[in-house]
């Protein structure tokens, strides 16, 4: 007995080890230029942390904000240029770091999207009144750290990498939510958020570990090799739902949406707007990648010989329908604008999930993930724009309630008009990017013959008109207590105007953007 145990030899050749390791290191070296945007972010994080300690507190919001803006735009430019120069025509995908992250046009598009969203959020932070007198070094470095996580999440093709990136997105945001730590609402919501996040993360990694157990590999591509015989099937179903839970948390989809309204209300508004766009988009990007590898439907044979089929696409469709209905119905009765936008963001998660349902689109036409990409592009401008106006209003008047928006229209005509455009976009009416995006989403769903889902989405759009229009009505048709003009800062007006213009451009001259979107593809 002992003989066999003790006499086994290890094949350990130092020379071979050295050569193999050398080649690994060379491949790492070669891959470094392709993560240039991420490296820029890491450098900026370090600089910001240190600058936050040495720059006088009074100047931090402006100077550090400017620095992070430059870093984000620089990283975004790098992301685009690395993406396009290496792959003319945005195709020919490849993987980096031994298959840990993908370098495909899908990832490049989302990276650019996150970094743009981050830049807008930085400007919003500057416009916001909530951070007067705060040390901002940590704020900006956490924001950039979370964006770094987003960039990695959109590109992750390995289950471990997905989990790590997801946590890198989440953990800094827990702190960002509680950044005004004396604020009681923020404290409450941050605690809820952190507990929810850790539970969802734990559940998700449990599911991922089951997949690892089934395949013996952490690569996403290995998911398609799972044999669906016998007991495996049950494990796959359980693991699938566990992993869905983790993604649903990030996307704020039912049933993992409970944190969303509280956190949106409690957090500082720039953080809310960050959560509603960048971190949600990252969750969607990873979910699309995961679903593509996992497959949308499976035929499962149970041990007894009976055969049942579980169509993941059905599950996603049901989640989508429930999510959008829940979000819209709850948003109807909200008084707080931030909370209402929180529920609206849940509803949008439902709309976007339609893109996952129709992911395997018809060849030559817009595919599901392309519709998601386009919707996020317009959602970026609509939602961030709406939040920018909300921030301006909150900073100038302290108003966060829908009631207190009464009569704001004549007091700040340009910005209120822009807010109306953003809200029309969020409803999904022409001539805005919201309409184009929603049209694409509905189209891919209808092409997949999920007519009921399209009808549910249509009804939901009709419901959502009520609460979005209420704000517009309050601003323009109701009389407020004051008629005094509200001060306009050039920066605020120009940012809001640009975003409104983009929303309109995406609604009218959308064809160049649709061209870009249609060239997006990802590794599968």
């Amino acid at each position: 007995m002992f003989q066999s145990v003790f006499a086994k030899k290890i094949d350990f050749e130092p020379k071979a080890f050295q050569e193999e390791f050398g080649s690994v290191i060379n491949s790492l070296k070669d891959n470094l230029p392709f993560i240039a945007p991420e490296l820029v972010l890491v450098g900026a994080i370090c600089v910001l942390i240190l600058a936050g300690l040495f720059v006088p507190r009074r100047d931090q919001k402006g100077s550090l904000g400017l620095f992070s803006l430059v870093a984000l735009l620089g990283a975004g430019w790098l992301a685009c240029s690395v993406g396009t120069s290496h792959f003319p025509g945005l195709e020919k995908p490849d993987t980096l770091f031994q298959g840990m992250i993908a370098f495909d046009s899908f990832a490049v598009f989302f990276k650019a999207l996150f970094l743009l969203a981050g830049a807008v959020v930085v400007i919003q932070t500057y416009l916001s009144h909530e951070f007067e007198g705060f040390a901002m070094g940590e704020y900006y470095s956490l924001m950039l750290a979370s964006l770094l996580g987003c960039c990695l999440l959109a590109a992750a093709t390995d289950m471990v990498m997905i989990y790590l990136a997801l946590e890198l997105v989440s953990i800094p945001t827990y702190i960002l939510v509680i950044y005004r730590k004396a604020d009681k609402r923020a404290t409450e919501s941050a605690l809820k958020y952190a507990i929810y996040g850790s539970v969802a993360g734990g559940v998700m990694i449990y599911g991922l570990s089951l997949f690892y157990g089934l395949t013996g590999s952490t690569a996403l591509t290995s998911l398609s090799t799972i044999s669906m015989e016998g007991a495996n099937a049950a494990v796959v179903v359980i693991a699938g739902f566990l992993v869905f839970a983790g993604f649903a948390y990030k996307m704020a989809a039912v049933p993992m949406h409970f944190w969303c309204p509280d956190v949106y209300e409690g957090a500082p508004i720039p953080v809310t707007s960050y959560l509603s766009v960048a971190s949600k988009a990252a969750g969607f990007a990873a979910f699309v990648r995961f679903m593509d590898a996992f497959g949308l439907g499976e035929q499962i044979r149970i041990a007894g010989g009976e055969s049942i089929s579980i169509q993941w696409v059905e599950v996603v469709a049901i989640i989508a329908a429930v999510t959008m209905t829940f979000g819209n119905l709850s948003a109807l009765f909200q008084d707080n604008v931030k909370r209402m936008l929180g529920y609206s963001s849940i509803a949008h998660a439902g709309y976007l999930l339609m893109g996952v349902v129709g992911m395997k689109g018809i060849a030559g036409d817009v595919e599901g993930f392309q519709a998601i990409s386009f919707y996020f592009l317009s959602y970026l401008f609509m939602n961030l724009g709406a939040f920018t106006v909300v921030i301006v209003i909150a900073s100038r008047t302290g108003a966060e309630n829908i009631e207190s928006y009464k009569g704001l229209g004549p007091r700040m005509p340009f910005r209120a008009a822009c807010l109306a455009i953003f809200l029309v976009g969020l409803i999904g009416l022409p001539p805005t990017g919201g309409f184009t995006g929603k049209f694409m989403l509905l189209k891919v769903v209808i092409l997949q013959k999920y007519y009921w889902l399209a009808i549910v989405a249509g009804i939901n759009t009709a419901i959502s008109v009520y609460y979005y229009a209420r704000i517009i009505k309050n601003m323009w048709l109701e009389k407020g207590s004051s008629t005094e003009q509200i001060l306009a800062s050039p920066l605020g007006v120009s940012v809001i105007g640009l975003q409104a213009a983009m929303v309109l451009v995406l609604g009218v001259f959308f064809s160049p953007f649709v061209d870009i979107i249609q060239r997006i593809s990802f590794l599968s």
Partner: protein
Amino acid sequence: MIFGGTMLSNGLVFARYSLAEWIQGLLGDRLEMIPEWILFPLLMLAGCLVIIGFITVFALFAIWMERKVSAHMQCRLGPMEVGFHGALQTIADGVKLLGKEDIVPRHADKLLHYLAPIIVFAGVFPLFVVVPFSEKILISDINLGLFFVAAVGAVEVVGVIMAGWASNNKWSLFGAMRAATQLVSYEIPLGLAFLTIILLAGSFSMVDIIHQQEGWLSNWFLFHNPFMPIIFLSFFTASLAECKRAPFDLPEAESELVSGFHTEYSGMKFSIFFLAEYAAMYVVCAIAAVMFLGGWSTGIKPLEAWLADSAGNPMREVLSNTVHLVVIVTKSMFLVFVQMWLRWTLPRIRLDQIMHVCLKVLLPWTMVAMVATSAIELCWPGGNMVLTALTIVIWSIPLLWTLKAILDMTVGIFLKFVPSGR
């Protein structure tokens, strides 16, 4: 099932360097009569017994030495009654402790109170598996040697916290909290020092590390480059703290906390804490000797070559092992003596000072020294004679200064006893 003769003959015995091999040599062919499943555990148990014997003898000696050193530093005589110059005093104390009652406070957590000394001792004792005494006298040369030390050495703190918490005594709790802070913090410079040595040796194994330092004295890692003495000082300071030795003896500060985390321990349980502490003292000093002072190497190249040349001369091997045993134990005991010396030289420092020393002095310096060492190792693989010479020159200045101070002091004390002219 019989232990194969082929394995014995081709030299690949189950452990290259081990006590087990010696026993093999003693038993010779008769070894084949014993089935493996009896032989192997027996060999390991023999190792345990040898080590427990060593620890006991070392503790007896070190406690006596500590008392003598402290006494002479304070111009006292210390224990003189039992045996020659009180040499048997510790044995008498030990026998007394055996007969002491075991008292567990009424409000204590009985189970944790019982487990604590077990964990503390079990966190130190396995470290002796990797502590080498000579080429042939060591339990086994684990290929993860230093990493093993870092990992298992960290277990002790659990026992200490457990002891303090379970006692339900405020003194104990304070002691335990201080111990936790201190032990945990000082693991960082300790780990960085390990890292530097691993980097230089390219191996975790203790025996490999010693082999890298064979030859002349200048091959010792202490003299590898001008930054290594910094690492050594930091390691030694951290190891003092890890052993809870003065000036880092806050967890058991007699004058403030009665006896710290083991206030509520009496009789044999107390002795176990004591034994573990002294065992840890030897372990850290032996490891420091291995890491920086060439282990069992004498530092004289011709002598080493002569000792290693055992062809046709079986007694030479025995001689070599004996010399090396003496050398490494002497080096370790010298470091143990320095520990005692420091105890009676430096006053105990406060908790905030402890944290200051660890995080603001040792950590940055060790980090910088580590990076510098790796850069030097990158530029001049295997070290550089000029750097070694530079190290010796630079660091001999403070060393000579210290020696002068000691000389002044001892001569001064001596002069006090010489009757003056009056």
